[in-house]
C-alpha cells in the first residue's frame, strides 16, 4: 500500500511531463475502445439481421431456357407450380418449404375509413420458419389448416397496421382484400432484416396462397423456397434441389437461366466476410493508435530512467536489489499506462452511453446495433494496454536494473 502511495506520489510529482503521454494513452484507448465497440455492435446487429433474413434460405425463380434440352428448343418459359413445394420437401436437408407470390392490391380497414395499397404476399404456412421471423405476442402466423380450408385470414405487417388502424394490436379485426373480408390473426413486427424483397416485410399483408390464388387467378407461384439444415452445406443443398426441380421442369440442370436461384446462405457468408473484414480493419486502426501512444510511453520512460540513474545508484547503495529496481520501474510505467488507459476506457464508456441516448430510426439502429463496451472488449483492451506497458517499460526497467552504483554516484 505504502509502495503504491509512493509510486502515485512520484507519478504526481512528474505530472507536467507525464500529462502529454497520459493524454496520448487516453485518446489511444478511447479510439480503440470506440472502434471495437462499434465493430461489436455492427457484428451483433448484422448477425441478427442475417438471421431474421432467413439465413439458410434458398429461393427458386422460374426463368427461360437458354439452350435446347432433350429435343426441346431454347427459349421455353419455366413455370413453377404449387406442387413444387412438396417436391422440395423430399430433398435431403430441407427443413421447411413454401411458395410465394405477390401483387399490390387495395386494402380497406373494417370501419371503412382507411385504405392502403400494400404488397400482398400470398405464401405458405412455413414461410415464417424459413425467413426466421417472429409474430408479435397475441397472434400467430398462417397455419396448414388455413391453407387446407382456404380460410380468409391474414397476418399484417406492423407498419401497415399502423397505417390502417393507427395501432398495432389488431388481432381479431378484419379488413377487406380482393373485395373479401379477411380476419387478422397475427402481426409481424418491425425488425431489421437483410435481403427482403418487394419492400420491407412490416409494410406487407400475408395471406394463404391457397386462399388468394382462386380469388385472383394466381395459378403459379413466383417463388418456391426452402430452409436448409446447414449453411455450411449450402452449395450441396442447392445442387440437390436444382436436380429435382430441373427434372420436373424438364430442363438442363446446368442451365442457370432456366431456373434462377438466390442462395441466402452464400450471400450471408459474403456479408459476414465483409463484417469480419470491417472489424479487423477497425481493430488494426485502433491498435496502431495505441502503439503510437505506447511509443510515447517508452520514450518518456527512457528519459525518466536516465534522469534517475544517480537515485537508482543511491537506492542500490542502500541495499536495493536489481530485481527490486526493475519491478519498481516497470510498475511506474504500468501505473502511467493504467491511468491513461483507464481514463480512456471510462471516457469511451461515457461517450458510447451518450451515443446510445441519441434516438435513431429503428431500422438504422438495426444495422448500427448498440455500440456498448462489453466486458470482453474491455478485458481485451486492458490486456493490450498491459502488453504495451510491458513492452514500453521492460527495456528502460532493465536499463535501471543494470545501473552500477559506483558509476551512478560519480555523476556529480
Amino acid at each position, binding site marked *: 500500500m505504502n509502495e503504491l502511495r509512493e509510486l502515485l506520489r512520484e507519478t504526481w510529482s512528474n505530472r507536467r511531463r507525464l500529462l502529454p503521454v497520459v493524454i496520448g494513452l487516453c485518446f489511444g484507448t478511447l479510439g480503440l475502445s470506440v472502434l471495437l465497440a462499434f465493430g461489436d455492435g455492427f457484428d451483433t446487429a448484422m448477425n441478427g439481421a442475417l438471421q431474421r433474413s432467413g439465413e439458410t434460405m434458398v429461393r427458386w425463380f422460374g426463368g427461360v431456357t437458354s439452350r435446347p434440352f432433350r429435343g426441346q428448343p431454347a427459349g421455353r418459359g419455366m413455370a413453377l407450380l404449387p406442387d413444387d413445394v412438396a417436391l422440395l420437401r423430399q430433398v435431403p436437408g430441407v427443413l421447411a418449404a413454401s411458395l410465394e407470390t405477390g401483387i399490390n392490391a387495395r386494402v380497406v380497414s373494417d370501419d371503412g375509413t382507411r385504405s392502403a395499397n400494400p404488397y400482398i404476399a400470398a405464401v405458405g404456412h412455413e414461410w415464417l420458419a424459413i425467413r426466421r421471423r417472429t409474430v408479435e405476442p397475441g397472434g400467430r402466423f398462417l397455419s396448414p389448416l388455413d391453407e387446407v380450408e382456404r380460410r380468409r385470414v391474414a397476418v399484417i405487417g406492423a407498419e401497415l397496421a399502423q397505417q390502417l388502424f393507427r395501432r398495432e394490436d389488431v388481432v381479431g379485426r378484419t379488413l377487406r382484400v380482393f373485395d373479401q373480408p379477411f380476419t387478422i390473426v397475427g402481426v409481424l413486427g418491425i425488425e431489421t432484416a437483410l435481403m427482403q424483397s418487394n419492400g420491407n416485410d412490416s409494410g406487407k399483408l400475408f395471406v394463404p396462397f391457397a386462399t388468394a390464388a382462386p380469388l385472383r387467378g394466381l395459378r403459379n407461384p413466383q417463388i418456391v423456397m426452402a430452409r436448409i439444415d446447414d449453411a455450411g452445406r449450402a452449395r450441396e443443398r442447392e445442387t440437390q434441389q436444382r436436380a429435382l426441380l430441373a427434372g420436373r421442369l424438364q430442363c438442363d440442370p446446368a442451365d442457370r437461366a432456366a431456373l434462377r436461384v438466390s442462395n441466402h446462405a452464400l450471400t450471408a457468408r459474403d456479408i459476414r466476410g465483409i463484417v469480419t473484414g470491417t472489424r479487423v480493419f477497425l481493430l488494426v486502426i485502433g491498435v496502431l493508435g495505441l502503439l503510437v501512444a505506447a511509443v510515447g510511453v517508452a520514450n518518456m520512460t527512457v528519459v525518466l530512467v536516465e534522469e534517475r540513474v544517480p537515485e537508482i545508484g543511491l537506492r542500490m547503495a542502500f541495499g536495493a536489489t536489481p530485481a527490486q529496481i526493475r519491478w519498481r520501474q516497470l510498475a511506474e510505467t504500468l501505473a502511467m499506462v493504467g491511468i491513461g488507459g483507464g481514463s480512456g476506457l471510462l471516457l469511451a464508456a461515457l461517450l458510447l452511453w451518450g451515443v446510445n441516448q441519441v434516438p435513431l430510426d429503428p431500422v438504422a439502429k438495426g444495422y448500427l446495433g448498440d455500440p456498448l463496451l462489453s466486458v470482453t472488449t474491455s478485458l481485451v483492451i486492458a490486456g493490450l494496454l498491459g502488453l504495451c506497458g510491458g513492452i514500453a517499460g521492460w527495456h528502460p526497467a532493465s536499463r535501471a536494473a543494470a545501473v552500477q552504483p559506483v558509476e551512478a554516484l560519480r555523476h*556529480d
Partner: protein
Amino acid sequence: MTEPLLSLRSATKVHDRGGAPVHALAGVDLDVQRGDYVALTGPSGSGKSTLMNLIGCLDRPTAGHCRIAGTDTTALDPADLAALRRRIGFVFQSFHLLPGLTAVQNVALPLRYGNVAPAARERAATAMLERVGLGARLHHHPRELSGGQQQRVAIARALVTTPDLLLADEPTGNLDSRAGVEIRDLLEELWREGRTLVVVTHDEALAARAARIVRLLDGRIVRIDTGAGAGAAS
C-alpha cells in the same frame, strides 16, 4: 584473535581511461577490527574513494580480495551484494539525499530494502533523526536544511539499519568549519557507542580523532599512524 570485520588482501583496482590503465589501487592489505576507527587520508587521486567503494560493495576489485564479516565480495552476485550492502552504512561526500523525500523518508529509505514494516520504518527513522539532533526537522525536505543538517540526515540514514560498519567519504568536505566540528563530534560519539568507522578525510583535525590513520599515495598504503582515539579504544 577474532576474524576482522573487514579484510583486504592485495586489493587492486585498475581503471581504463581511454585505453591507458590507471592503477587507482595497487595492492592494498588492510584489516579493520570491530570497534575500530580508521581514517583514510592522502592527496587527491590517491585512491581513497576507490578503496571506500570496494569496502562498501559498490565496486569490485580488479584483483585481490575483499572480505566483509567473513564473506568474500568478489564471488557474490548482484542480489547477494545488495544483501551485504544492507549491513553497511554509507555517508557520501555530497550528502546524496533524495530531494523529493522528507528527512524521515530519506532516513527510512534503507529500511525499505530490509523488509521492515512501514510503521516500524518511520519509528526507527524518527528515533535516528532525534539521535543526530534533528528531532525538530523530521518533515523538512533537504532544500529546507543547512549543509550540516543535511549531512546529519545522511548519517542518520547510514545508521538506521544499525550496520556493522559505517563508511563516510569526506563527511566534512562540503561543510563550513562550525558544521564540520558538529559532524566530527557526532562521529566520535557514534564510535564511542561501539560502532566501527572508516572515514575518508582531508581534514587532519578529523583524522587525528581516529584510532588509526591510514595514509594512501598512488593507490598504496604508505604509512599507518596512531591517532588520539587509539588510547580511548575499547
